[in-house]
């Protein structure tokens, strides 16, 4: 009970404690600095970095040149099922850009590529395209176009 006390410990235990302490502090500080260069600011604790909003028209470009919205199910697939419970699952409604626009665009590009390479029953789609409209901290609207890699369709 009462105030903190000290008790002598072996030299190696103390050295291990000092090494752990220093490693955690230095790693955390490095991650905070490094996070300024990454889209999602992992372990950099940059909370609520933007108020940006976005929406996108995501389409399948088929072999016959049609552009079909991914909001329609196709060949047993559906975009929200392919992308799951993340911000890009329902791109046709306006969303807050969690972790900022850069992270959102990166996620959306990843989702386009993933869908292109994980839908083997779909024999019609050549590629996925997204036309994104976003407002970044009240500036804009800006527009971006993203495309998946072109699929090998038999």
């Amino acid at each position, binding site marked *: *009970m*009462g*105030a*903190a*006390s*000290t*008790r*002598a*410990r072996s030299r190696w235990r*103390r050295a291990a*404690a*000092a090494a*752990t*302490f220093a490693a*955690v*502090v230095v790693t*955390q*500080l490095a991650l*905070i600095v490094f*996070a*300024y260069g990454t889209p*999602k*600011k*992992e*372990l*950099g*604790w*940059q*909370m*609520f*970095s*933007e*108020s940006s*909003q976005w929406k996108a028209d995501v389409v399948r470009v088929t072999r016959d040149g049609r552009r079909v919205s991914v909001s329609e199910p196709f060949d047993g697939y559906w975009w929200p*099922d*392919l*992308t*799951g*419970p*993340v911000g*890009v699952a329902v791109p046709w409604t306006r969303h*807050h850009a969690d972790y900022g626009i850069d992270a959102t665009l990166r*996620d959306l590009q*990843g*989702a386009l590529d*993933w*869908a292109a390479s994980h839908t083997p029953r779909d024999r019609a789609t050549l590629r996925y395209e997204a036309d994104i409209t976003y407002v970044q*901290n*009240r500036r804009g609207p800006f527009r971006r176009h993203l495309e998946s890699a072109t699929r090998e369709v038999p």
Partner: protein
Amino acid sequence: MTAFFDARGSLRGVALLRIALGPLVIYSLWPYLREVDAGTWYGARYHAPYIASLPTLPAPLWHALIVVGALAGVCIALGLYARTACVTAALVIGGNMLLSETHYHHNRAVLTIVLALCALCGPARELSLDAWRARRRGHPLETSGLLWPLWLLRFELASTYLASGTSKLLDPDWRGGVVTWDRVLQGRPLMDRSPLPTAFIELISREDVHWFFGKSAIALELFVGLGLWSRRTRLAAVWFAVVFHVMVEISARVQVFSYLCLAALAIWVVPSVGDRRIAYRASAPRAARLVALVRRLDWLGRFQIAPSSAADGPALTLTERDGTVFEGGAALRHIALRLPLTFWPLALMSLPGIAPRADRLLARLLR
């Protein structure tokens, strides 16, 4: 330096945090538990592992890991094999984030780090089934522990406020209030349907208000991150941290973040127990009842409580750790300031000019 790494003290605050971590682990894993229940799996949808060579886990294995993580949450709350449970939960939540960038959220990352450092502290020394079992076996656990892991935990938690505040300070949109103004305007339709007074909604929708509010929010975050380190400013920093997290919880979806940070405020208490003494006159029934309540609310073990043998004199006396003595209403106010559930309103009652009136009001409770 040697003394720093050898220093020991009470880790009661960590034990209190550990109890809160259990439900937070389950809350954090809840979306994935629902997937387990529905039979769905992250591998069947877009995912992007942080390490390219990480394989996509088979559904049964991933489901098992999520369930193990949730069970670890239960063990953490109960303090049953608490250290192992903390490490397990940290590995499951942290590992799940490594499996896909889409699983990453700052609040989950903070939770993972807190769990790992909590394990390092030795989270089961008090308020745990582990401690109860050890007592029953006749080998009670030592309640004091090494303090350097606690300092590491404090560093990590303070760094979230400081890094976040600094990033906003460096961002002209945050400094200028654009980000908060835009968020309020986005939430305006919701506010218009709420019972909030129209004048208030109009006020917080004004750009010039956010020019001031943006800077205030940054200053608040930085003050919390810095103020927690000094005993002189700690109480104010904790008070403002509560305000900050309540504001965040109301205005944004942050999963476990607010609850985690509020629970983690417990680790900022001085790591010693029973270093304040409460004496109450046994013949004063109201004082005896209040002291019984204090016993139940003294989760951080800050008081030694004993009845006073004196037949008359003050109904309640508090002797602070520096020897300062408070009596009657002032004693009650200072006691309530040290209890987690009552400190927040009592801090307001301790402002200069208000404290004497508060003491007179509280003294009535002792009569």
